[in-house]
């Protein structure tokens, strides 16, 4: 006789017994030990049929091909840039992936990207040895000018973006800020004035702290309405 000891969307801690008996199967973040299924991480339970999965509350960023990330130039060589994307290995941005311009032999690469410059880039390749290549030659990828940087845990990024970008769209529309959320948890934000930037930052940090609660979109909407007085800014261009 199998027994489920937790509910869907419940917050569990490592070592907690999630289910007894052989009718349930452990997925990510859970293991079977004897007859029991035990959680190995702190997170929110996601039940799908017989599968028990834990969506962790915090994690390190692990790059995957196709991720859009925000990073900064850590170092540069004669033919490439090293970009810090918050992973153990720095990503390599090669000359041909950086720009469509013709670069002369021996040209000064700092005219394109210099130390400390932030950019939106896409993960082009992750090799077996965890070397990461990124590219800038796609629409929407660009160097970032001005604005500020906020860092959140990468595990919270899906909640900050929301389903099909719904959450981030609410924040953009009600504060008029340009916001780019990298999958690595680095967020770039630039607004019309300090007040709106502060409201947007606060909204993002609220989602960051309450990422495991339900009905976050409604809460955020109410919060933004209260702070901005319900004023809607025009739809800004995707930053």
């Amino acid at each position, binding site marked *: 006789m199998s027994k489920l000891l937790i509910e869907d969307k419940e917050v569990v801690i490592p070592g907690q017994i999630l289910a007894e008996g052989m009718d349930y199967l452990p997925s990510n973040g859970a293991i079977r030990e004897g007859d029991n299924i035990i959680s190995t991480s702190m997170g929110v339970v996601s039940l799908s049929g017989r599968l028990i999965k834990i969506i962790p509350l915090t994690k390190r960023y692990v790059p995957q091909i196709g991720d859009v990330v925000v990073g*900064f130039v850590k170092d540069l060589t004669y033919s490439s840039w090293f970009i810090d994307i918050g992973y153990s290995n720095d990503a390599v941005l090669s000359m041909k992936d950086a720009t469509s311009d013709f670069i002369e032999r021996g040209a000064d690469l700092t005219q394109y990207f210099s130390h400390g*410059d*932030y950019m939106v880039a896409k993960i082009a390749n992750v090799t077996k040895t965890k070397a990461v290549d990124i590219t800038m030659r796609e629409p929407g990828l660009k160097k970032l000018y*001005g*604005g*500020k*940087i906020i860092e959140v845990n990468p595990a919270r990024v899906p909640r900050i973006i929301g389903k099909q970008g719904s959450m981030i769209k609410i924040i953009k529309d009600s504060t008029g800020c340009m916001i780019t959320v990298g999958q690595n948890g680095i967020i*770039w934000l630039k607004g019309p004035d300090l007040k709106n930037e*502060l409201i947007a930052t606060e909204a993002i940090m609220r989602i960051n702290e309450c990422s495991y609660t339900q009905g976050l979109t409604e809460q955020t909407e109410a919060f933004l309405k209260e702070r901005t007085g319900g004023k809607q800014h025009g739809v800004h261009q995707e930053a």
Partner: protein
Amino acid sequence: MNKIMKDYILGLLSKGERMDGRKLDEFRKPIKIEYGISTKSSEGSAIVHIGETMVIAGVKMAIGKPYEDTPDEGSLTVNVELSPMASESFEPGPPNDYSIELARVTDRVVRESGMIDVNKLCIKEGEKIWMVNVDIYPMNDAGNLFDACALAALAAIKDAKMPKIENDKVNYHEKTSKGLPLKKTPISVTVIKIGKHLLVDPLVEEFNALDARLTIGIDEANNPCAIQKGGDAPLSASDIDKMITLAKEKVKELRKVL
């Protein structure tokens, strides 16, 4: 190092704004002190909050031998430990430059102001003295650790009660009603310079973007008693004058919470 944040902070400062909406010379709220948080394991203790920044300090006292050059003076040791709990930028392991500087600056504010009457800590000249250890643990670093540590050290020292001496040994379970012999109450205010702007109570982002900083310890007569300069940029004499004037003004606010 973070160019985009420095440009952002400088851009706001030129409009007279800061990234959390404060004025340039405004401390975060609330500033509060809780005394006596650990009466069992320490002689004196306190928690200090400045905004989100939180620092715990404890005072331990022991009997020891005096240093040879000061046979009739008690000793004072200040130690700051930065645990990884306080900030993601702190690593476990031996003390780094930052924690050593924090400890030295806090030590200097307490010592050079003459806050503790060290002569009264002498039990028998040349043989026995009280050794005062102040241990400071930042619990959350949301900026301005310099001022928070000095305030926590002051609060814990004010809170401390001498333990009882029985048969030449210290009985830590019983405390006398006597506090440490105090003469002054120094408080430090750190003024940082970014570009040409002077500001107090820096956030972590502002602290990382500073050009120069000056930590000024000020006693209750409003006299500077300790100064430490940091950062790469030089300070002119008029800069230092302005910073000390600003610090003397702001220290009154901090003194209210004692």
